[in-house]
């Protein structure tokens, strides 16, 4: 799961990309001293990677975020630091890409560097989201993102959830849909992610790597 140098997380907005990317980076940092995460979200001004900056930095992760992230300005400017990550080969890098085809546009800026590197492009799916709740809609979303990013999705992530009320049954239902997409598009399933209580034995039996999530992006009353 952590073999690639560059790990890019794309998907529909609200699929849980950011939580998955943040948790992925935290796990990665346990194995690799040099880990970086890039908040490449130029779409969503709220609830983003930079919200988890303290947790990430305490674990020695280098956080690169747009200068104006979480301020009152919504200027989608990408920091120049991102370019150095393609030179510093000693780093493992996680990219949290913005939602949908609009968000994926930002990653196309680095297309040439990415294809020459050792990379994985994950597509994060929550089948409980209305725009990705059947195989056709998921495929359409994948094609839109691929076209916008100029890159092919190489791995699918099952992040099916209803937040705190998620059960393993929800994840299994999602798995069925995602397996269908995986077969039709010939893209492997990379891993399944979810909160600890939902990743029970029935999920473990599926035989895919699991990423246990901890909630890092919080609301004011949480």
């Amino acid at each position, binding site marked *: 799961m952590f073999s690639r140098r560059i790990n890019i997380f794309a998907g529909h907005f609200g699929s849980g990309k950011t939580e998955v990317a943040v948790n992925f980076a935290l796990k990665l940092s346990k194995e690799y001293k040099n880990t970086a995460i890039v908040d490449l979200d130029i779409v969503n001004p709220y609830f983003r990677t930079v919200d988890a900056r303290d947790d990430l930095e305490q674990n020695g992760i280098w956080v690169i975020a747009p200068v104006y992230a979480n301020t009152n300005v919504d200027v989608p400017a990408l920091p120049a630091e991102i370019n150095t990550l393609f030179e510093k080969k000693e780093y493992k890098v996680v990219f949290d890409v913005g939602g949908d085809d609009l968000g994926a546009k930002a990653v196309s800026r680095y297309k040439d560097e990415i294809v020459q590197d050792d990379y994985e492009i994950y597509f994060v799916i929550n089948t409980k989201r209305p725009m990705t709740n059947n195989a056709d809609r998921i495929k359409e979303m994948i094609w839109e993102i691929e076209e916008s990013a100029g890159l092919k999705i190489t791995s699918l992530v099952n992040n099916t959830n209803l937040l705190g009320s998620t059960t393993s049954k929800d994840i299994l239902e999602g798995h069925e849909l995602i397996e269908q997409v995986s077969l039709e598009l010939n893209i492997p399933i990379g891993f399944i992610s979810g909160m600890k209580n939902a990743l029970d034995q029935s999920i473990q039996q599926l035989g895919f790597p699991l990423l246990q999530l901890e909630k890092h992006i919080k609301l004011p*009353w949480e």
Partner: protein
Amino acid sequence: MGEKLLMKGNEVIAEAAIRAGCRHYFGYPITPQTEIAHYFAKKMPEVGGTFIQAESEIAAINMVYGAAGAGARVMTSSSSPGISLKQEGISYASGAELPAVIVNIVRCGPGLGGILPAQCDYFQAVKGGGHGDYKMVVLAPCSVQELYELTVEAFNIADKYRILAMIMGDGILGQMMETVEFRDKEEIYEADKSSWATVGTRMERDHNVITSIYIDPEVLERHNQKLQAKYRLIEENEVRCEVYNCEDADVIVAAFGTVARIVKNVIKMAAKEGIKVGLIRPITLWPFPVKVFEKYAEVPKAFLSVELNAGQMVEDVRLSVNGKRPVYFHGRMGGMIPTQQEILDKIKEILK
């Protein structure tokens, strides 16, 4: 209940509108509510509806005027600066008694302000942001589920009274994700609009005219009196309010929207320290739950209004409590959100 999904507040507004029979949406993008337009753009073609990204907010509200005048269920949405631009259209539509739903996912001001959450448009929404003696029904949900239910409700109220209904949320509510459970079928108020809407005469009657101009002052006064009588009726029938933990409360907090959710945690924290805090959460900001505040006016030692602004709803709380108890205020601005501890400290300071 039916299908359970994980949705963003903004998406739910659009989905609820479609389920309520809205087939016309006109709007112009602005953070933090653009997902509403985004969702309609994808979904309206699937249900045979109309999505138009207008050339401006002003154009959008006038398209709403046209569609509502023709008897359609119609919606527009924006965020604070865009809602300011719509005020002329809002006043005209109110004068012409047109039913429609307007969404304001409020961001901080004044002016261009910023994109972060705020409640600083309370005055604009409930006191009349446009000119003339008009009212809009203003609904303030606090969760994604309630956003769904109240959006459907807003269309029904609008049609029932021939009035504009506004859904007012802040950026947190628009952007946050929560589970939402949809009903299999919505209860839709079926209004017969043939007596006033431009639905076609079939050459069998005179034209219906949609207008807010009345040349004769006596006629215009009568028109205004009719509007006022309608507003009094709405004040009687359509107040919605949540009362929580108010019996024997030491302090009753007034808060609406997402702030009320922070206050609910403060109530738990306070209880651990032996302080009894209650919450009155107006769900309709207009009509304001005056009678609820009257009922509890002499229960606590004091009231505290907590808002994401410089003190707006607090004026209505003061008018309703009517001097029986002191009414305090705590607010944050600029996109800052009060912490639970900060609100608890304020309560303790009041009780000192």
